[in-house]
């Protein structure tokens, strides 16, 4: 006869995907009920810790645990790719934003620089701490990306949670200060864009998940090894041998939109920046 406690455990086990329940449910129920008195079973409940451990197992088994069916493996792979590229995007946005802001403030005279510094120090201790944390912590998106690429999962999880933290401040600020929330839709979306990747990193890069893998090439871009090698620009244009005849005259006009020289040149040194539309193959 099924007791109330057994029914409660089975309800908790419904968090697990069906393939996992089919394989393990009876065995797990046996473990749960092993040393519980038959007479006291109706007064007991699964503890919070037991529910939490099953919830964690449910996340792992849905995001490509070992031996998972194909659809769970695909889902896990999709979540991991989303997490990786969302982290990369956040890191790129934050780094470029902060570099641009510092460059602008440092090159527009002392007044702009003072204005920049006042943003950190001008309004008392709490806003100063918040401003410094809001400046420093988002840089951890970069740490998260490189930690994922180098398969340092614990570091990636810690870094991404810290990096996403400042996005909550605009939501909390009206509760602890007298300032009203400005642009609520924007700050909510901002927090969502930070915490979705953060949660995806924490859930999908679990211990049993395969390591993060960069794709061999991004659409319209050369492959990753090609980007890092000195010969990268010569690979991004069609080979010359395709069009027989004399080489085309040197032109000062930018290449067509189909050529990838422009983004590639932006990533190179000062010489490339002087002629950003030309690469060595053009």
């Amino acid at each position: 006869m099924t007791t109330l406690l057994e029914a409660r455990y089975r309800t908790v086990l419904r968090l697990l995907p069906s393939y996992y329940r089919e394989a393990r449910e009876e065995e797990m129920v046996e473990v749960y009920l092993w040393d519980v008195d038959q007479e006291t079973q109706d007064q007991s409940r699964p503890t919070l810790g037991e529910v939490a451990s099953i919830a964690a197992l449910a996340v792992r088994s849905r995001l490509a645990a070992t031996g998972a069916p194909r659809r769970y493996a695909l889902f896990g792979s999709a979540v991991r790719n989303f997490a990786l590229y969302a982290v990369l995007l956040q890191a790129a946005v934050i780094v470029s934003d902060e570099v641009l802001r510092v460059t602008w403030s440092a090159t527009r005279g002392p007044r702009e620089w003072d204005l920049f510094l006042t943003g950190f120090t001008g309004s008392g201790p709490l806003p100063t701490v918040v401003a410094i944390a809001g400046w420093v912590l988002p840089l951890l998106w970069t740490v998260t990306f490189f930690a994922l690429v180098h398969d340092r999962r614990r570091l990636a999880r810690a870094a991404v949670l810290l990096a996403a933290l400042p996005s909550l401040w605009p939501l909390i600020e009206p509760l602890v200060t007298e300032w009203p929330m400005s642009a609520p839709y924007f700050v909510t979306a901002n927090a969502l864009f930070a915490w979705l990747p953060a949660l995806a990193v924490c859930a999908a890069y679990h211990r049993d998940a395969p390591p993060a893998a960069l794709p061999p090439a991004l659409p319209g871009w050369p492959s990753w090894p090609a980007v890092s090698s000195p010969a990268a620009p010569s690979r991004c244009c069609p080979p010359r041998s395709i069009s027989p005849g004399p080489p085309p005259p040197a032109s000062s006009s930018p290449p067509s939109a189909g050529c990838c020289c422009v983004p590639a040149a932006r990533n190179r040194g000062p010489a490339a920046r002087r002629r950003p539309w030309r690469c060595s193959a053009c």
Partner: protein
Amino acid sequence: MTQAAFFVLTALADEPRHGYGILREVEDLSDGAVQLRVGTLYGVLDRLTADELIVLDREEVQQGRLRRYYRLTDEGMRALDAEAERMAAGASAAKRRIAEGRKAGGTPPVTGPGLAGGLA
């Protein structure tokens, strides 16, 4: 190898055990320091099975309930042995250092000039 995986392998080193038996054995082996929850235990069992360190030994049905017994594979025994050697080497190195520290009077050796001597 995680602490949980190490204790699960250790629990299975002498004989095949089922899930509840592994939980109790891990608790005994660690003097109560490691108390695995069922979700954690099955996560570890999944990983060890996938790594071919343990296999299903047999199944029994008792009072309408399923018990699965797991046992170590040869690979699992080798992995446990290697991990135990590694831990023993670390423990003996720690003991050696502690003994050396006690002999030296409990103060760590000074490896560079201190502030008093270096700046004088």
